[in-house]
């Protein structure tokens, strides 16, 4: 039997199985969306594939009943973990009126859901970083015991808002956890044309906060890093920067063709570390998941996704005139 790593992190077998379930649900939902896109049923997909372990590992280290999150467009895993349902996500993919993120107003993967404390997200990258810092500031002002968790891509970490936001959090020691999901590309531009340091986490010292680079394919490593950061934050020690290194398995989005700028071999190589495979193997090796349980899980997830898809596909579009509403308070 393999070395049991989750127990020493304080995670039960049920919890790690639940982590895996969320990872798999994210992956399968994402795959279904590509199918729907290629079938001409939904106009756009932007994927979490390759980053599920980072997203779920991090989310499970948070208190999903009170922490706030400002996710970015790849964070299907994060929003699932925070309580958004597959059905709600499909409603968004189909741009239907019932979509809780935006009522079909935004592209898919522009997440937001107040009841689950998921801040609404736009397309211009990195704007969410100062927002998350504002949430952290509110927590400090009101002496509340939650943290604010914000994610972004490594390319996006070059925007001024990253610098301004993290510096603000650092100066005021705010309970903010920033996780950069480094998937090696910003659309076509590779890491070494984006940043000049070795790690994005090297930037933490600029802001007087700890910075750590973890294997984004290892949900337990990410869990551990975020858990520590959360404890620090609640102890009033301020923010942390975590870089989760993974790889983008798909093209940037359904509008991109990644053969223009990277080799298929590189992608294939990266997929060998696919956490969906490696974490499943770990769960089996540690006796947490049997083959049978895995098959049940897959069936359960398929059913969820089928139901979500059917529901969303048949749901109504927003009324045209509803485009006029909610510009200001009504």
């Amino acid at each position, binding site marked *: 039997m393999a070395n049991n790593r989750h127990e020493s992190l304080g995670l039960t077998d049920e919890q790690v199985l639940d982590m895996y379930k969320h990872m798999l649900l994210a992956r399968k939902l994402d795959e279904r969306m590509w199918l729907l896109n290629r079938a001409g049923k939904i106009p756009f997909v932007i994927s979490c594939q390759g980053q599920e372990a980072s997203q779920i590992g991090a989310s499970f280290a948070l208190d999903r009943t009170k922490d*706030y999150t*400002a996710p970015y467009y790849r964070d299907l895993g994060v929003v699932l973990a925070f309580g958004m349902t597959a059905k709600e996500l499909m409603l968004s993919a189909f741009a239907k009126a019932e*979509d*809780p*993120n*935006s*009522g079909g*107003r*935004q592209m898919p993967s*522009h997440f*937001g*859901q*107040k009841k689950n404390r998921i*801040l*609404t997200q*736009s397309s*211009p990258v990195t*704007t969410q*970083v*100062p*927002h*998350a*810092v*504002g*949430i*952290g*500031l*509110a927590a*400090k*002002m009101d002496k509340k015991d939650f943290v*604010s968790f914000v994610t972004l891509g490594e390319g996006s970490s070059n925007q*001024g*808002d990253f*610098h*301004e*936001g993290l*510096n*603000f959090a650092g*100066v005021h020691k705010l309970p903010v956890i920033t996780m950069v999901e480094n998937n090696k590309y910003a659309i076509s531009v590779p890491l070494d044309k984006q940043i000049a340091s070795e790690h994005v986490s090297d930037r933490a010292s600029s802001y007087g906060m700890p910075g750590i680079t973890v294997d984004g394919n290892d949900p337990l490593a990410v869990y551990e890093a975020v858990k520590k950061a959360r404890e620090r934050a609640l102890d009033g020690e301020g923010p942390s920067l975590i870089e989760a290194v993974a790889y983008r398995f798909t093209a940037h989005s359904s509008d991109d063709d990644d053969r223009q700028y990277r080799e298929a071999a590189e992608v294939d190589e990266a997929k060998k570390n696919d956490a969906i495979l490696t974490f499943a193997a770990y769960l089996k090796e540690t006796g947490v998941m049997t083959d049978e349980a895995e098959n049940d899980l897959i069936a359960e997830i398929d059913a969820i996704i089928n139901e979500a898809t059917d529901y969303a596909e048949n749901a109504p579009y927003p009324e045209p005139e509803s485009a006029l*509403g*909610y*510009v*200001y*308070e*009504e």
Partner: protein
Amino acid sequence: MPVQSYIQAITAGLREEMLRDENVFVLGEDVGKKGGVFGATKGLYDEFGEYRMLDTPLAESAIAGVGIGAAMYGKRPVAEMQFADFIMPAVNQIISEAAKIRYRSNNDWNVPMTIRAPYGGGVHGALYHSQSVEAVFANQPGLKIVMPSTPYDAKGLLKASIRDNDPVLFFEHKRAYRLLKAEVPEDDYVLPIGKADTKREGSDVTVITYGLAVHFTLQAAEKLEEEGISTHVLDLRTVYPLDQKAIIKAAQKTGKVLLITEDNKEGSIIGEVSAIIAENCLFDLDAPVQRLAGPEVPAMPFSPTLEKYFMLNPDKVETAIRDLAEF
């Protein structure tokens, strides 16, 4: 009623709202210990403490962005941009985020934030401490832009802005700060955002304007009264979205309309005002709609000869009204 300067009225409005609602807080550069470079927050740091009168790092995008985050949580931030000219680094947060958050989330989230900034020229501030920047934002549904012209309006509109559940840009004329003094009620009052205000009744020429130019216009109108020219003055108060009804009514009243802004002309607020009139009042007009504005140069220059040439003043307004009256 005590007499207060425009800036005292703003300080008083801020203080009353901070006392009324503990979610109201101020963030910006030098707003704390120093009390602001103009003194708009003087005394409030001592009264309310560091976290309600927060000196931020020198970074406007963060001031706006952190404010947005806190507002989404339920706070009521009042962000100060030290000069309106320095709002530019925050444009992305204001236009892409604050303006669109209610709409894009289908009413799930909202941003009850006020951004205060001193604008305007005539204070030897040169290119970057004199600008009128409202036109940059006056095409963005989701935003409201308030530009008060008197101490009374400043206080009542600031309080309304802070209580508004959507983002409000609140531009204060920095030359008005100490120039304008008037009676301001000590009790709690708010003025409606989105409504223009008739500052003077008249029958020959209608002037529609806002901000410090209202003051210049009232001065000019008084002089012209002696010549027998009667000027109607509509103060826009909220320059975005515009109060169309009030504009149409004021234009129809005299049939001769002069629009005034301190900004350069092309692309300024008053172009939209003119378009509203052209759409709605064509057959009520006795003369072409006139515009009085700054010259088409990037911003107000420093040297006294140049500043004077650029800056609006009561004489320029007087001449423009008289010309139109005689049309």
